[in-house]
């Protein structure tokens, strides 16, 4: 979809949909929202809906940041301690590479 061709109201609806959709444990929607609407929110000349779009994009970015931190921390902990956890580590894993503790 080309944002250029969309009227401003629809941009706002779309941005809100993506923002709300992100709460369903879908951080990638927030990522898309941030990347997609960044230009509209911060670089375009002002228009009525821009302030709202700005808020949504900011909040999406915040949520995204939260997810990134949580996931990075978890992945680091998991990779580091999987072997030590033994049984629990194995049950948490989807694939266990052959021949590694």
């Amino acid at each position, binding site marked *: 979809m080309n944002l250029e061709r969309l009227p401003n109201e629809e941009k706002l609806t779309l941005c809100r949909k993506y923002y709300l959709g992100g709460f369903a444990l879908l951080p990638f929607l927030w990522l898309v929202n941030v990347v997609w609407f960044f230009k509209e929110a911060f670089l375009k000349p002002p228009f009525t809906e821009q302030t709202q779009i700005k808020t949504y994009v900011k909040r999406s970015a915040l949520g995204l940041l939260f997810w990134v931190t949580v996931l990075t921390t978890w992945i680091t902990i998991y990779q580091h301690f999987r072997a030590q956890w*033994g*049984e629990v580590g*194995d*049950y948490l*894993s*989807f*694939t*266990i590479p*052959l*021949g*590694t*503790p």
Partner: protein
Amino acid sequence: MDLLSNKWIVYLALCLFVAGINCNSVENKIYVKLNYTVPCVRLLNSTHQIGCQSSLSGDVGVLHVLESEENLDFVLRNGRNPPYMVIMESSLFTRSVMMKLKNGSSRVAGVAVVEPTSNPPDGFSPHTRCPNENTGVYSENYGPGLAHCNTTKWNPLGNGLSYEEFDFPIFSMKDDNDTQLIRQCYMDHNRPMNGSDPQYPLCAMQLSSHMSAVTSTPTCMRRNSISFSMSNDMVCDPLSDQNIWAPSKPLNTTQNGHKANESVIIVSARLDSRSFFSEIGPGAESAASGLITLLAAAHALRNATQDAQLDRTIFYTFFHGETFDYIGSSKMVYDMEKNQFPIDLDNVHSVLEIGQVGLHSSSNLWLHTDPVSMRNSSIQEEVKNLIANLKSAAAGLNVSVTEPGVTQPLPPSSFQRFLRARPFPGVVIEDYNSSFSNKYFQSMFDNADSLNVLYPPNLTPEEQLNHVTNTAKSLAEVATTVARALFIQAGGEKTQISSIKADELMVSRMLYSFLISSNNSWTQEIVGLKDVVHLNNNTVNFYISVEQQASLPTILVKYLLANLTGTAVNVTQENCKNQKESEDDKESKHLYNYFWVPGAAPPNSTERDGFCVRSTVHWSRAISPAFLMENYTTSEYSTWTESRWKEIKGRIFLVASHDLEMLTLGVGIGVLLSSLLLTYIMSSKADILFSSGREPTSATY
């Protein structure tokens, strides 16, 4: 597949790059695959992993032929091109060398050991000094002074290499064309000339033996069972095989539990051995000597037990997996305790075990007993009785039987697992007093040579098969002693024992079949058709391995025992296969087992005369009870598992110098960049370049 690769080769030839008519694929120009590769594989128990492994794609290192232990410095410190792939004669395959390599493993890519043609005179045993230390009967609660080989180290030469863990691959190689090629390659490319470092390209080797299992048996068994994982690969399997047993008179084997009025003498031998390398387990003395003696004794007793009505039943038993913490015997005792066996422990009167009885140049057998259970006077009496029977059986024969003078524990033996359950009278027959006379206990040198099975030169295989060696004679003597003692022990008349005599020719043939070649005219006659395919021209490998693989010792013992103790009956092939003597016979299968064997071909014919052998031979699973209870952390039972692997291979090739590789890359990048630049200029100026005065518009670009 073949057709496709043909085309590729064709095109290689047609288009460009192959000289002359040698349409070799590029791979053949680079690599030489090693044909005979025997790896050391990873085994796991409840707490440890032992053995070797490579990385997933195989470990690559520059070849270095190790000439002496001092030469290790080159590998571990001085050499310029680490990591090294160390090639060594088996004389250097010692604990000190291997431990140095293990500790410097960042500079060691792997080790290849060249099998020697003769055995090391000083002895070599990669097993521990105290075999099966923790799963025998002696512990803090049972003869604490005798536990952990406190009184005597049974295997003083043991260096424990088999129980070490190496994080590089170790392969064994025959001294043949491959090793010749490796040495040649080393000489041509890697040998330092006049003290200077050798020039690239260097000769290198890649060994692949990546093991799937890791850490311990609990871990790998858990990973076997995790089913939601993407790859449903099994990573390890329990070591297991079959115990083989045959009562001297038919017992109803489909009814388990206690048999009323049945008293049984268990006479046993072990059916397995091992060495550092999984596919080499000759076990001549550690397994074959005992089991051949037992088979010969069973053969000698065939007629005597049928003619005389004996009070007790003799129970010929072959335990598998005894090397790995008594897998077979612990399973049988477990079954007897759980009433899952045709007899139970109450039926067992006494136990006689035949251990290593190779009789190295002596004729003395030692009768080992358990001092702890003998504190009980009734047990002591029974043991004394058994010893007396053995002594009277040996009278007049060429062997002498002696008791160890001092108080010492039982040597490593299956009997210990019976004693763990409850006190039994029993004797373990060995050819040593306080430490193994076998210098090569569970090593690759525990072979025909070490047992002195030597044939005069220029004998055909057929003549070797029937040649009675001195070893065969002495084993036959031992077998006669055992058979006569059993006869008396079972309640037979002492006057009749002179007619019981083991057959020297049978012993010779068995020795040949187990130690030289299992595929011979004799085994072809007595091994059933469906199992003949397993016979081969090599020494039998006594390593227990995993259940999926039919193990040759089990097959051979099964058929040998059936043929030596059973009788040929007149039954059709069809009925024989269905375990019955006639169409409406439903009882026999509970008592007997029927094998259809090929038999010998009569003269002037190639068609063999098959017949049906009826015997009391039976078998049951030899798997550690730990795997039935799914308790993999137990210290009570064996927990050994063998890792699975995908590929075992080795190949040698040359490696190019780093400089040449970088030069190639540099030239490549240069060509790419300059052609990008050139084409950019040309295409941007195409109008001028390709415009002739006459036709200005038809520029190519």
